[in-house]
């Protein structure tokens, strides 16, 4: 091909193929998953016993390795008894797309909890609150501090070395400490998200602030801007689009700390739901819960990205 294609290094992808590729990126994994689940000869390493026949140790609904099952069938044949029957299945930890989908739908159709068990939505709502407060608290500290560090070299020298040290400490390492200080309920979980996000946030935002076009600063200074006015009339509006993008990335970061945070103290939220369902071997529910996290995370990010197009039109078009 003489024209630049999307498969050439740094090539270009046309509008139509962009849509096709985007669709494929979702469809292909689903197709593979469906094939593995529904086409019996592709994987299916186990057998689900539907009729134990004459074999004593078999029960209906039992899963076993295919080789073991075939041995059992041969034994029964040899003994002249009724052979066990079964269908080939995948391991319990790989439910079919249909199973996961119906579990997902079930979560919305039947939102009420039964007994002490929380439904997937209730559990997830709790998680979202943890994320929200963790991210808000982190941002209230991190954004102003980051911007100030970026704009004031002296403050940057004072703050950033210690922050650089702290960010290498894994947030989960603070788990026990946070429980000791903040108790076992939601506070230590929020604290873990804050710890996981805040230090990165300060450094990332300080860097973004430092990248402000210096020419704009100089122009503003020759026009009489100084101090607070310079800060709020030039620095803040100038970095806002990049700051917004940083916040989007950092929100994703906060999500990655959620699971760890929720295991601390009394386990709660979507993590509690996932571990509980896994214990019951309801893996369709586990996948549904994981999918929910992914969908909400991606959805939020897409929404924020979409909003940015309207908020920062000047930036979009200059790039």
């Amino acid at each position: 091909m003489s024209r630049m294609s999307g498969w050439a290094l740094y090539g270009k992808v046309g509008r139509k193929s962009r849509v096709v590729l985007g669709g494929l990126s979702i469809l292909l994994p689903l197709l593979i998953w469906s094939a593995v689940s529904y086409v019996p000869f592709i994987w299916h390493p186990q057998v689900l016993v539907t009729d134990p026949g004459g074999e004593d140790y078999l029960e209906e609904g039992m899963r076993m390795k295919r080789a073991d099952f075939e041995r059992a069938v041969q034994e029964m044949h040899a003994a002249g008894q009724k052979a066990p029957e079964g269908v080939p299945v995948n391991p319990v930890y790989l439910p079919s797309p249909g199973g996961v989908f119906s579990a997902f739908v079930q979560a919305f159709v039947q939102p009420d909890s039964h007994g002490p068990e929380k439904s997937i939505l209730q559990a997830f709502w709790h998680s979202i609150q943890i994320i929200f407060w963790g991210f808000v608290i982190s941002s209230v500290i991190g954004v102003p501090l980051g911007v100030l560090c970026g704009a004031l070299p002296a403050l940057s020298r004072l703050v950033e070395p210690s922050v650089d040290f702290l960010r290498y400490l894994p947030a989960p390492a603070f788990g026990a400490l946070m429980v000791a200080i903040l108790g076992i309920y939601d506070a230590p979980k929020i604290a873990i998200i804050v710890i996981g996000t805040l230090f990165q946030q300060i450094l990332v935002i300080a860097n973004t602030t430092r990248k402000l076009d210096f020419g704009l600063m100089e122009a503003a200074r020759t026009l009489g801007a100084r101090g607070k006015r310079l800060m709020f009339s030039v620095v803040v509006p100038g970095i806002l689009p990049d700051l917004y993008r940083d916040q989007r990335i950092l929100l994703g970061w906060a999500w990655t700390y959620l699971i760890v945070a929720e295991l601390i103290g009394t386990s709660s939220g979507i993590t509690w739901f996932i571990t509980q369902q896994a214990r019951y071997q309801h893996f369709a529910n586990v996948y549904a819960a994981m999918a929910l996290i992914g969908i909400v995370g991606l959805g939020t990010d897409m929404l924020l990205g979409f909003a940015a197009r309207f908020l920062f039109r000047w930036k979009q078009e200059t790039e």
Partner: protein
Amino acid sequence: MGAGNGMTVDYRVLPPDVAERMARIKSRDVVLRVENLGKVFAQRGRETVALEDINMNVHRREFVCVVGPSGCGKSTLVRILAGLEQASSGRILVDDKPVDGPGPDRGMVFQKYTLFPWRTVCQNVMFGLEMAGISKDESRRQAMQWLQAIGLERFADSLPHQLSGGMQQRVAIARALAAQPRVLLMDEPFSALDAQTRVRMQTHLMEIWRKIDITIVFITHDLDEAIYLADRILVLKAHPGRMEEVIEVPLSRPRRAEQMTSAEFQATKAHLESLIHTPAEETADEFEGTEVPLLTLVTDVVE
């Protein structure tokens, strides 16, 4: 040294009208005074003298151009005048008051487009007024007047990136003027523009300068531009940056493009070239020993 077309014209001899105008300029107050200005850059223990003993007086409504070879520190000079860099010695006075740091009394137009991309054209022009504590409404009113004056009121609500480079620089000029500086400093403002736009901008700038009480210090490396625009040209030489000569341009005003072919213009340019290009030119070293070997057939000639 004579002009190329056979006539021998001394660039130092001012025609009567120019001499008279020059005398008038010199009778006006000095707006910008530079006294024994020096700048030393210290880097890794080594000191480089960028500017040494610069003295100049710029009179009210005078148009001064600063030229010099690359590395003569002309950009450093204008940045010090703007207060963006600190002088190592000497001082700068605006209206006989020493200045320190940037201030609205010295406006600046940069080589790079430095309009605030998130502000509309009008909001950009309003910036200096807002910083001076003038109310939004009054700032807007004055900004619109400035835009009208330079013929850009149609674009008041456009964003900078929607304008061409030339128009962006016009807005930058309006933005600097709106803050009502005493001196307008211009650091190679037109060098990023294409040749045609540059000529139009020069004419436009002179038109503005003629109608507005503003004093201009204009940095350029384009000798034609300097001669075309300036009343006086300050020539710097490099290593260290020092004053070489101050030339009074022997061209009458208003300036017209035809003057560029006149004997006075050519004589001035020839002299400037001899000042700037004759001393062992460093840039020549970069090309030394770079004769390209013949990579085609000897018979395949293009000239």
